[in-house]
């Protein structure tokens, strides 16, 4: 999926993505072409009872592209990994749904986002989540560790998608589920836009 990129191009993509999400950790306004924050949550039909007692800043930093929780229930006591957790909104929803016997880990490549996630999670009414800086291509967990892996708007930013998919398979338990919301190409890019490096981070 990525073997035609040079190391220099991969470094540029990674750097630009980190720059974009460092800005989005302060405010997503102006960084995305679709609704973010509470407007995005309502458009994607996230039930308000899931998030009405979250810190307002956490809801305002939501920049997902879908509602991965619509793909199936999370069960009490389950262990969930959220890849590309951003400021931690979906991880917080997952933490609520799995309950106090469950655990949620949010991962993001952006240190600024992980710092925001820790800050904002301190004001949540539950304490069953944690956050780490890591990439989907090298997951810092043992095999067969998670019941569910979620991701929302992040997988399209992963440079080596085949490696990330293998890693996700590795850390899921047998019968574990993947619930993914992501950006996909729905109309072919015009020739002048195809294969442009900035497609990755615009």
């Amino acid at each position, binding site marked *: 999926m990525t073997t035609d990129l040079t190391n220099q191009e991969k470094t540029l993509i990674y750097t630009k993505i980190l720059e974009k999400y460092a800005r989005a950790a302060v405010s997503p306004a102006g960084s995305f072409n679709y609704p973010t924050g509470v407007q995005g949550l309502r458009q994607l039909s996230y039930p308000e009872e899931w998030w009405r007692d979250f810190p307002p800043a956490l809801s305002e930093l939501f920049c997902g592209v879908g509602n991965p929780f619509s793909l199936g229930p999370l069960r009490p006591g389950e262990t969930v990994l959220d890849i590309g957790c951003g400021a931690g909104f979906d991880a917080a929803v997952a933490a609520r749904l799995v309950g106090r016997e469950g655990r949620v880990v949010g991962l993001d490549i952006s240190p600024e986002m992980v710092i925001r996630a820790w800050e904002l999670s301190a004001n949540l009414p539950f304490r069953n989540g944690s956050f780490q800086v890591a990439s989907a291509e090298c997951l810092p967990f043992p095999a067969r560790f998670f019941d569910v892996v979620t991701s929302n708007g992040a997988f399209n930013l992963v440079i080596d998608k085949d490696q990330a998919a293998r890693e996700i398979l590795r850390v899921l338990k047998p*019968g574990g589920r993947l619930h*993914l919301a992501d950006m996909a190409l729905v109309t072919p*890019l015009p020739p002048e836009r195809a294969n442009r490096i900035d497609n990755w981070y615009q």
Partner: protein
Amino acid sequence: MPGEALLTLWQDAGFDQVKLAGYTGMKSSPYTEGVLLSAEKPGEWSVPG
């Protein structure tokens, strides 16, 4: 990446029950839209704990 290629990617990685559940209406450009996809790791799920 088109949605169909996304399906193939997860199938090739070894997942079962790979399904494109639909589009979300969130568009980041005239060419891209949010999709929902689910899949399972082969094997039998057991009750957590």
